[in-house]
C-alpha cells in the first residue's frame, strides 16, 4: 500500500479521494490555492499545503510545484481527481521521473485518446462504431462542402482540440456552411491554439450514453455498464442516471463489449469512460471520445454495482489485478445523480459568494458529495459545482421520488443554486418517460421563471422581507428616540413606593 497520497485537486472530488484513502488507511495530502485556504478539502485531509495564487494556472495546474510538495511531504502517489491535470500526459511523465506513482492511466493511454481524430482512427481499427464524417482535418470551405455532400446534412463542425462546448457548430442548411466553418476555426485557434476542424454527421435524436471501463496492468479490462448523461446545459451534464431508460438489454451488452474492445486496443489501465452518441430513434451508437480519468458522475456506477471506483483505482495503481471479473458485475436497481451548481437556475449565470445556511439531505439511500458548509465563500476562480446528490431506488420511479425528496431537504441560502431547476426537471414528462435527449433543456424544457419558481407562494417572500425590513427600521428608530417619556418611569417608581 502507498504511504501517502497527494490529491492534486480541490472541492468535492478531493474529499472523495481523501475518503477512499482514509478507508484504506493511507494518509492524504491536500493542496490548496490562496483562494482555498478555507475549503473543506483542506480541513478533511491529513496534511495540507499551499501551492500558490488563486487562478488555477498558477496553482492547481502548476506541475512542478505539486510534485515538489509531494516529495517534501513524502507522498509516494498522486491522485489527480478530474479536470485540472487529470488528463495531462506531461504531468504523468513528470511524476514518473520523480519516482511518484500516478493514480490513473499511462501517458500513452492519454495521448492515444487526447486527440479526437487519432482516437477515432484507433476506434475504427478496434471495430467500435464511429460517426460518419470527414475522417480527418478539413482545411478549406470547399473541402467542407465536399464532405457534407457525401454524408448529408445536418452535420456538426468541431474543433479538433475542442471540448466543453467550445468550438462546435451545427449546420442545417447549405448557406450556414461557410460561417460555421470559419467560426469553429477561429474558436479552435483562440481557445485551444489549434485551428484544426473536422466534420461529422449530426445525430438528430441524440442521447449521451457512456460506458465505465476499468483496466489493470495485467491486461484485464471490464466494463461497469452505462450512465446516461443527456440532461445538459451549455453542453455540460447536470443530471446522470444508471441504467439508462432508453438502452435495451441487448444494446447494453453490445455497447459494453465495444467499450471493452476500445480500452483493450490501447491497453488501458485504470478507470476510464467511453462516451457514445446514442440515436434514440434507431438505437444505434457511435464512439464520441474517451475520458481517461475518473468522471464527476462515477458515484451512480458505484451505487448500482457496489464497487468503490476510487479504491479500485488505487489497487490498480499498486499493480494489483482487478478485484472483480466481468461475470461478477451486475447492475442492481437504479441510481440518479444531480449536480448542484452555484448559479442562477434560469440564466445559468454563476453565483459565487457567501453560503449562509447549508444543510445537506440525509436519510435512506441518499449520498451527498459536497464541499459546501455554512460560512464558506464560493470562490469565483473555479467550477460552479459545489455538491452532488445521488439517490438509489429499486426502480427508476423510486430513485426519482427519492431524489425529489432529498432535494426538498437541501437547505442552501446566500447564493443562488440550480436546485429548483432540478426539481422542475424531475417532474417533466420527457424526463419521466425517459425520452429526453441532449437537447432536452434547450428544446423541450421551458426555462421560465413562473414554472421554476412555482414551488413557493410570493406572499411567503413578501412577508419575510417585510418583517426583516420592519425590524431593521425599528432598531434604527430606537436609537433615534431613545428617550422614554418620563411619565412611565415616574409611574413605576410610584407603584413601588405604594
Amino acid at each position: 500500500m502507498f504511504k501517502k497520497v497527494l490529491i492534486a485537486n480541490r472541492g468535492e472530488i478531493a474529499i472523495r479521494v481523501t475518503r477512499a484513502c482514509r478507508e484504506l488507511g493511507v494518509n492524504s495530502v491536500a493542496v490548496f490555492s490562496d483562494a482555498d485556504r478555507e475549503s473543506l478539502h483542506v480541513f478533511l485531509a491529513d496534511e495540507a499545503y499551499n501551492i500558490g495564487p488563486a487562478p488555477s494556472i498558477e496553482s492547481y495546474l502548476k506541475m512542478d510545484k505539486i510534485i515538489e510538495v509531494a516529495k517534501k511531504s513524502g507522498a509516494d502517489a498522486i491522485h489527480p481527481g478530474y479536470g485540472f491535470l487529470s488528463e495531462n500526459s506531461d504531468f504523468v511523465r513528470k511524476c514518473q521521473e520523480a519516482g511518484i506513482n500516478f493514480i490513473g492511466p499511462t501517458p500513452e493511454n492519454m495521448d492515444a485518446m487526447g486527440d479526437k481524430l487519432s482516437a477515432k482512427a484507433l476506434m475504427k481499427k478496434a471495430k467500435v462504431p464511429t460517426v460518419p464524417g470527414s475522417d480527418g482535418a478539413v482545411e478549406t470551405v470547399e473541402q467542407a462542402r465536399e464532405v457534407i455532400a457525401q454524408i448529408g446534412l445536418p452535420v456538426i463542425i468541431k474543433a479538433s482540440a475542442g471540448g466543453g462546448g467550445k468550438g462546435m457548430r451545427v449546420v442545417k442548411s447549405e448557406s450556414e456552411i461557410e460561417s460555421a466553418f470559419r467560426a469553429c476555426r477561429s474558436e479552435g485557434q483562440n481557445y485551444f491554439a489549434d485551428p484544426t476542424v473536422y466534420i461529422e454527421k449530426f445525430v438528430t435524436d441524440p442521447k449521451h450514453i457512456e460506458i465505465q471501463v476499468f483496466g489493470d496492468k495485467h491486461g484485464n479490462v471490464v466494463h461497469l455498464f452505462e450512465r446516461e448523461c443527456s440532461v445538459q446545459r451549455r453542453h455540460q451534464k447536470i443530471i446522470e442516471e444508471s441504467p439508462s431508460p432508453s438502452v435495451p438489454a441487448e444494446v447494453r451488452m453490445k455497447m459494453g463489449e465495444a467499450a471493452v474492445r476500445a480500452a483493450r486496443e490501447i491497453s488501458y489501465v485504470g478507470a476510464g469512460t467511453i462516451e457514445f452518441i446514442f440515436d434514440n430513434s434507431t438505437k444505434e451508437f457511435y464512439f464520441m471520445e474517451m475520458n481517461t480519468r475518473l468522471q464527476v458522475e462515477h458515484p451512480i456506477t458505484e451505487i448500482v454495482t457496489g464497487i468503490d471506483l476510487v479504491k479500485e483505482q488505487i489497487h490498480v495503481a499498486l499493480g494489483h489485478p482487478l478485484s472483480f471479473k466481468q461475470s461478477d458485475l451486475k447492475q442492481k436497481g437504479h441510481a440518479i445523480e444531480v449536480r448542484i451548481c452555484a448559479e442562477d437556475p434560469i440564466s445559468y449565470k454563476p453565483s459565487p459568494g457567501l453560503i449562509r445556511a447549508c444543510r445537506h439531505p440525509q436519510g435512506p439511500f441518499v449520498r451527498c458529495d459536497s464541499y459546501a458548509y455554512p460560512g464558506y465563500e464560493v470562490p469565483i476562480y473555479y467550477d460552479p459545482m459545489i455538491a452532488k446528490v445521488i439517490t438509489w431506488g429499486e426502480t427508476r420511479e423510486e430513485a426519482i421520488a427519492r431524489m425529489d425528496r432529498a432535494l426538498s431537504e437541501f437547505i442552501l441560502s446566500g447564493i443562488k443554486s440550480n436546485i429548483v431547476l432540478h426539481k422542475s426537471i424531475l417532474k417533466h414528462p420527457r424526463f419521466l418517460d425517459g425520452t429526453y435527449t441532449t437537447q432536452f433543456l434547450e428544446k423541450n424544457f421551458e426555462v421560465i421563471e413562473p414554472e421554476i419558481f412555482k414551488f413557493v407562494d410570493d406572499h411567503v417572500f413578501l412577508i419575510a422581507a417585510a418583517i426583516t425590513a420592519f425590524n431593521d427600521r425599528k432598531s434604527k428608530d430606537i436609537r433615534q428616540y431613545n428617550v422614554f417619556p418620563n411619565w412611565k418611569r415616574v409611574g413605576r417608581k410610584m407603584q413601588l413606593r405604594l
Partner: protein
Amino acid sequence: MYFEAEIKGKKYKVDVVEQPRNWKISLQEDGGQWIHYDLSKEDYKKSESYFSFLFKGVSYLVDVVGKDTEYTVFTRNSFRSVKIFNDEMLLHESLKAGGGLGGDKELKSGMPGKIIEIFCKEGDVVKANKPLIIMEAMKMENEMRTSADVKIKQICVKQGDSVEAGAVLIKFDNP
C-alpha cells in the same frame, strides 16, 4: 409601518404592525384587494441562522439577506429579490430609472469576474441587443448585451481586468 414593495416586477402595498405576540401583515397587490394575515410570533421563529415560518400550515425555512431597500429571500431553494421602500417617492424614482440595460446610465457587473473581451469603444452608438462585453466567471463566459440603443460615454474597464460584483463597466449617454 407602511411600505411599498416590488417583487419580480409586481408592486405591492404592505403594512406591518407588531404586537406582543403577533405580526399583523396586510398586503395589497397593485389595484387588488387588501389581504390581511394575523401571524403568531410562534409561527415565525428564528432557529440557527434562518427562520422557521409556518404559513397556512406549510412549513418553510426562510433566510433573508440584505438591508435598506434590497432584500433577497431564500426558501425551499427558491429565492426572490424584494425591493422595499418606506417612502412612496423613492419607489417611484426607482421605477422611473428602472428597466433593463439601456434604460440605465451604466452597465454594472452582476458578479465578480474577469473581462475577456470588449466589443465597443468610447463614442460608439450601439443598437439594441448587440454584445458589449464578455465576462468570465467560474469558467463560464457571459455575454452582456444592450437592451436599447445606447451611446458609449465611457468604458471603465479593460481586457483582462478582474472586477467585483456591482462594479461599473460602461457608462452610457442617450443616443
